[in-house]
């Protein structure tokens, strides 16, 4: 299952797991199992939204993200399902 952003004009997008702490990006597409997709959408991670990566936990641990007025943690393997377009 894939949910994509209707307005993507860029080339091949990166995935959220590659973002560096402090960087911001726009969500382009989400894919993965429906359960994960639904939860991501409910917490505000949907195509077109801006995400900021606040930090990564040590030893390949989860990511600390901020989207809209919500901060959340997401495991890196789940972050691979989110493709993004970095913002400067």
């Amino acid at each position, binding site marked *: 299952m894939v949910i994509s952003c209707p307005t993507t004009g860029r080339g091949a997008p990166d995935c959220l797991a590659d973002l560096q702490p402090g960087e911001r990006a726009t969500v382009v597409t989400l894919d993965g199992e*429906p*359960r*994960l997709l*639904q*939860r*991501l*959408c*409910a*917490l*505000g991670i949907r195509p077109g939204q801006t995400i900021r990566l*606040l*930090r*990564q*936990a*040590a*030893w*390949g*641990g*989860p990511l*600390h993200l*901020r989207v*809209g*007025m*919500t*901060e*959340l*943690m*997401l*495991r890196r393997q*789940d972050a691979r399902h989110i493709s993004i377009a970095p913002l400067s």
Partner: protein
Amino acid sequence: MAHHGHGVTATADARVAFLGMPNTGKSTLFSALSGHHAHIGNWPGLTVDLMAATVQWEGQTVELVDLPGLYDLRGLSEDEAVVRRFLETTPLQLLVVVLNASQVDRQLRLALQVKALGLPVVVALNMADEAGRFGVKVDCKRLTRTLGVPVLPISAKHRRGLVALRQELKEATGRDRPALTPPRSVVDCLPEEDDALPAALASVLRQSVELPGEWQDRLSRRLDRVLLHPWLGLPLFFLAMALMFQAVYAIGAPIQEQLTTTLDGFGSGVLRPALGWLPEFWRHFVVDGLYQGIGTVAAFLPVIFLFFLAMGVVEDSGYLSRSAFLMDALMERLGLDGRSFVLSLMGFGCNVPAILGTRVMRSRGLRLLTMLIIPFSLCSARLNVFLFMAGALFSPRSAGVVVFSLYVISFGAALLTALLFRHRYAGKEPLLLELPPYRLPTLRQVFGRAWAEVRHFWIFARRFIVIGVVAVWWLNNLPVGVQPASAASLSGQLGQLLQAVLAPIGLDPQLSVALVFGFLAKEVVLGGLAVIYNQADPNLLGTLLAQKLHWTQAYSFLLFTLLYTPCLSTVAVLRQESRSNRFTALSVGWSLVLAWVASFVFYQGTRLLGLGG
């Protein structure tokens, strides 16, 4: 008064349900409105218990129901299915949607979904004070107009805005208000996900909500910079846990001791004389069996209360989800998450509240796996036995090593259990946790919750425990006239019978009987040994044990004590929380198998090495 096993209150004139996302303070609002009258009810057709309370409003009996937190009415989680089923089968006068005001940008989506059900709805915009601090401005009047349902700003934690909300609820539940269910199935009522809903949401937000450009919560950002620091985060976390742990048991242990002494004093000073008219055998049963057994469990209550105070502070302050963030790299590999770790750590004080604490996890698989590992945490009751036996049977220098080795084995058993069972209880839900802003918990909140937990434990566990206490007492005292727990008693005979399995791990009939006692609670193991060896003085008992037992036998006994079923209270809460006899049996069975195998390997191994006695 709390009740169990009853569901829908047949006599209620009206019913109101509370619905909202996790972390919106929905349950805080629920308890603020219902007072201390909440009970846990089984609802027909639902797989989980719901909190419900009845209140008297304007001469009407109104039932309030707290639904599980959910993100999406179309959601696929168990909780979301429960809410749908509840709404479809339970006619309601009113549905209260609780939203976190500072996250209104995404939470309004749920309100729009609920509105589409065609039920009377009131929106409670909770944490309105916090939203203002973060720069989120919500125009409630305009939101009421654009949404078409009443929107009320409140702060459940600080009890603001509750008068107006209660008034709204009273009006909605007045006489002759019809009770409604959605006209079609919940999913069929919902607006189109891709089209209608986002447009409606954007329009409502544009008209009545003002969002800040940047996050304004400087406090959380600063605290996170330290508490979630890549290198400092974990040491600080362990330090915080150690301090909390110390505090709970430094305060709790003396209270527990005092309570035990008081209860003992009452038993021998008041109860025994008052029961003088009973035959000796029955007086003995009531005082030394029933009363003392219940007293042993009652003495846990202060520690459970303190534990939940501490847990409440950790959870309500926002640190619990941070601990999940910190520990997740390790725990993910074990099929667990950071919260499991915090709870296992709590289990080192007492397993019972740690198991009750797993309620913070909504995924059943994760919860069961966590409940399976907690009983291996070396609790304070087991530590008592270990300190006594290590002191009596080992030199002062090796005693410390013995106790330390038991801690290591305790961790190892939990790890092994997680690795073995992680596929069976794999959490089906992705780990996507909110990291809420840091908040100062209120006293009322943490005290109220700790009190509710203690009451809940006591009400459920005591039935189970009374049965267990009575059973062990009969084993020790039948046939009539035997020396209690002697070879002629039923438990003595059981000890003989158990020799077939326990002799290979070095345990004689007396130690076997002590293990039967220990099933009740590890607190009674030492008392049990005193009865079995007929030696009440602890020092003399220690000397006697040292004469009778080889150190390999003693260590094998300690190993078994560490790993098998911690106590009847733990079994009771395992059953209560899992609601599965099979799971409870698996937990008890697995711990017995592991205990036996570990002791066997140790005892026979040392014999092979020529160290055995």
